[in-house]
């Protein structure tokens, strides 16, 4: 049991423990924070495996992007201190049963299977090698999926803006409704001011 092994088990415990709390806690903001630590643990596992570039992408995309997006949407849709409703015991038990059975089934299959290592000189997973492989148009290159992904990201961005945009009719109706309220507030303020002036006089 050397230091590297201990670090691996600590990272695994961080990932699984925080993931477990993230799906069971009833405070949604806490769930988001524990999800963040679970994703950081996964980035640590990538560092442990010497895949520095993937670990950096994991931190940037998941921790810096997706979790921040989730926290923003929690702020937009939840009141502070609000707790999620309790789930029925029956549903919880059935979910635990389904998850544990699936876990055991998968693990038994994995344990029985003996993996064969491929022969060949190992390739360093450095940024240069990954980039060359990603952008080469040869038979084993990934230039076409790269372009397809860029189109997908553009489409997703446009789609997000269109879906989350307020419809023009809704904005107009809200403004119309807001108009009289503002007038009444102004009138109230004027009344208060007038009353104060009278009091002073």
């Amino acid at each position, binding site marked *: 049991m050397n230091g590297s*092994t201990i670090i*691996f088990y600590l990272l*695994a415990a961080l*990932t699984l423990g925080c*993931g477990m709390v*993230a*799906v*069971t806690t009833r405070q949604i903001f806490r769930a988001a924070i524990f999800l963040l630590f*679970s994703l950081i643990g*996964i980035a640590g*596992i*990538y560092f442990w*495996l010497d*895949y520095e570039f*993937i670990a950096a*992408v994991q931190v940037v*995309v*998941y921790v810096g*992007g*997706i979790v921040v*997006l989730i926290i*923003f*949407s929690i702020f*937009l*849709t939840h009141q502070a201190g609000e707790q*999620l*409703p309790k*789930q029925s015991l029956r*549903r*919880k038990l*059935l*979910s*635990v049963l*389904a*998850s544990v059975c*699936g*876990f055991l089934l*998968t693990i038994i299959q*994995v344990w029985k299977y003996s*993996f*064969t*290592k*491929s022969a*060949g*000189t*190992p*390739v360093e*997973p450095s940024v240069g090698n*990954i980039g060359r*492989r*990603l952008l080469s148009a040869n038979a084993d290159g990934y230039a076409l*999926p790269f372009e397809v*992904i860029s189109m997908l*990201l553009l489409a*997703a*961005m446009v*789609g*997000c803006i269109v879906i*989350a945009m*307020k419809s023009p009719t809704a904005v107009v109706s809200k403004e119309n409704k807001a108009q009289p309220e503002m007038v009444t507030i102004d009138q109230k303020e004027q009344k208060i001011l007038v009353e104060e002036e009278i009091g002073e006089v």
Partner: protein
Amino acid sequence: MQPGIYHLLLISTALFFIGVYGFFTRRNLITMLMSIELILNSVNINFIAFNKYLWANKLDGVLFTIFIMAIAAAEAAVAIAIIINLYRSRQSIDVKHAEELKW
């Protein structure tokens, strides 16, 4: 015992089924999205483990991981746009209140 591919597959399987448990029990759209993120991450661990321990002479696992991350980012952004739109019209993001397409 030095950790190998079996340990990594054990972690990724456990993470996958933690995500599945969350997906079954949660009834709030944002927490369901979090469970989906955990599931996608467990798949990424699998790809990296196979690339590291079985096909060290190739980079396909790394590239697949990068593509999955890009798709996960796009999926999370679209899902949150839909959730915010739903909250605007229903004042709730519980799956019970989004049932127009049921049946």
